[in-house]
């Protein structure tokens, strides 16, 4: 038996066959049982299996994309639950992008940001204000709401405004000693929320506690976008961009600088890394992902108010990062998926089921115990358990291994060797 398993883990062919069978079976299952959440989740689970297969990275990406972009929507589209499945998918994408943003800040740069949701809020309000009549309250020019075509532009604007906020917050705050940063960012998150909740006077900018409603839906080549199944693809597109940015940066000069600052600030500085600038870059880039998704969120909900941007939400994103594994891109995506599905699907379903049992008189469960209300307890337990017993998360971060043989060969072929040369970077210059 053990022999067979080890054989299986060595053979890409056997794995490919097994994987194809798994995808076909679960896809068929969902196709036939459209209302079965379990079938839907099992199909999504195939992505995780795919991650562990012994295939080329590029092949995995292509297969994964095919499943997410074609198989899942196609198979799920046959029944009444289509939109709710796509809604879950959309939310997973939104939260995964945000947790990748927070991962840059916490996982790469080692800065604990407890007010991360503020950047999401900034992105959401930016689109909401201009894509509704709200902007006409204070803008001296222009006609509002702006048409839905501008949504695409606002994804970018959301990113930019959020990163400006990130920098504005960072400039004062990043001088603060490490552990104080957590509490300062927490305070900042609350400030943003309170301000958004009260900016209906003296000038009405955010419409206060009432929130902003009737936000114009996006428009794609004249087609208005209003369904989750359509937003699913927008979110998927942004999500892919975010993954690309994160993975590219992780192994770049900037990514190394982030991790150096995280591992040892003093040594990082002594190696020529400007501390504040490097941290600001993490804040700004992390925030920009949230800003983009904020704009999408506002367009999707067509309504925003400050209650969506509380400390609980910030912590939820932190839970995703810790659960998945700080610094680990695949881990964080998995963490986001698990928490989002738990939060939007599993807990609600469980609560409904329990309520049904209660009304049928099978068992009596007090309302206080309703799983949908237990978010805090679940998040709290996840944080404590993972911090204490599995700090590296579900999929631990792995450093990229360099092909030593290739490097050795290149080094021996390289002319002279820079090490021996006496040329040197010019003195001077400030950073």
């Amino acid at each position: 038996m053990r022999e067979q398993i080890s054989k299986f883990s060595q053979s890409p062919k056997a794995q490919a066959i097994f994987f194809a069978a798994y995808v076909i079976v679960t896809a068929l299952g969902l196709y036939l049982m459209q209302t079965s959440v379990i079938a839907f989740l099992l199909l999504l689970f195939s992505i995780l299996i795919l991650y562990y297969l012994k295939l080329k990275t590029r092949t995995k990406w292509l297969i994964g994309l095919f499943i997410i972009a074609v198989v899942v929507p196609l198979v799920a589209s046959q029944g009444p639950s289509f939109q709710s499945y796509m809604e879950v998918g959309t939310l997973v994408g939104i939260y995964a992008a945000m947790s990748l943003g927070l991962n840059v800040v916490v996982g790469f740069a080692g800065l604990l940001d407890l007010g991360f949701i503020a950047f999401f809020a900034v992105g959401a309000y930016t689109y909401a204000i201009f894509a509704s009549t709200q902007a006409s309250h204070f803008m001296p020019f222009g006609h509002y709401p702006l048409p839905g075509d501008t949504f695409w532009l606002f994804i970018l604007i959301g990113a930019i405004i959020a990163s400006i906020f990130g920098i504005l917050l960072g400039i004062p705050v990043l001088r603060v000693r490490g552990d104080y940063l957590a509490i300062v960012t927490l305070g900042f998150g609350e400030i943003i929320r309170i301000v958004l909740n009260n900016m209906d006077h003296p000038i009405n900018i955010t419409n206060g506690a009432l929130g902003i409603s009737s936000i114009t839906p996006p428009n794609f080549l004249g087609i208005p976008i209003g369904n989750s199944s359509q937003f699913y693809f927008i979110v998927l597109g942004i999500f892919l961009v975010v993954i690309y940015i994160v993975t590219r940066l992780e192994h770049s000069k900037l990514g190394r600088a982030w991790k150096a600052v995280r591992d040892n600030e003093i040594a990082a500085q002594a190696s020529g890394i400007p501390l504040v600038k490097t941290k600001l870059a993490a804040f700004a880039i992390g925030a920009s992902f949230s800003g983009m998704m904020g704009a999408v969120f506002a367009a999707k909900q067509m309504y925003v108010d400050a209650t969506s941007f509380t400390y609980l939400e910030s912590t939820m994103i932190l839970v995703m990062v810790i659960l998945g594994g700080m610094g680990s891109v695949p881990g964080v995506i998995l963490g986001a998926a698990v928490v989002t599905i738990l939060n939007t699907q599993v807990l609600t379903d469980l609560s409904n089921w329990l309520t049904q049992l209660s009304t049928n008189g099978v068992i009596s469960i007090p309302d206080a115990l309703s799983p949908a209300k237990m978010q805090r307890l679940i998040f709290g337990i996840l944080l404590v358990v993972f911090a204490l017993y599995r700090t590296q998360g579900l999929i631990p971060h792995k450093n990229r291994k360099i092909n030593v043989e290739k490097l050795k060969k290149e080094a021996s072929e390289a002319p002279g060797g820079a090490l021996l040369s006496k040329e040197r970077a010019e003195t001077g210059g400030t950073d």
Partner: protein
Amino acid sequence: MLQQIIQILPQVLVDGLTLGFIYAVVAIGYTLVYGILELINFAHGDVFMTGSFIGAGVLFFLMSIGFLSSVPSLIVFIIVILIAALATGFLGVGIERVAYRPLRRRNAPKLIALITSIGISFILEDVVRFIAELKTGNYIITAPSLFKTQYHLNIHSIMPFFHNVTFQASFLVVLVVTVVMLISLDIFVNRTKWGMAMRAVAQDRETASLMSINVNRVISVTFFIGSALGGATGVLFMIQYGTIDPYIGFILGIKAFTAAVLGGIGNIRGAMLGGILLGLMEMFAAANLSTITHGAMGAEYKDVFAFIILILVLIFKPEGLFGKAVVEKV
């Protein structure tokens, strides 16, 4: 405008002092733990909250057995606050055992300890909500009234530029109890063997352990004292403000932490002064922001005000008003 501000100043002073003393005691919990472990114990605000609920629970129980009508309320109050303080004291020790000590043993990064404390804070909030909701059907609880007698201080007749001041008997209780707690803590830390051990561990944990001080025991004692003080203050909060919910510890905790930073983290007397100062400033802002900004900003910005103080202090005077600068060893 100035006249308006001056008129209500005495009332602001009374309200600010009430709040300030509460901040002061909770701030001590943060400062004690930070002084010894360099850890922001995010769960401390929720220990305070748990204290207020335990107090309310005991009070309800005493009421249900008819104790409240037959015994003077002062005695009832002392029983309640002692039970709550003991319970939260042990809660604090338990939290340290379960959540922080294992991390310390394996030398985990600070970030991890912070995250654990956030987790503990969430767990406490939800467990308290759960129990409260199960028992009463609602997680917002209105405590039975104690010391609700209203007093009027007629200062207007003596100093006509002031308005009169109103306060409840509970104001005096808060004042007396917090002052007693603050003084006894100060004596404990500065005059007793345990207090000396605490200061030694705060200064240098390794050397202290070489001096045959049981560091873990000292840390436990620190958590017990900090948490018991926090829990007792929870009871005071409940008596003073009447309504409690599981989420009061969050904002109040951050503000108490602000107070601790204001006074120089690790500095006990600093935390007391910081708390009182913050309470006064916050009440002043709440009462006058609207007047000062001509209605553009109202009392709803008082929390923002406190956070801004926190951020400003951390940036410009991170050692606090009464603390010492720390140089990192290279």
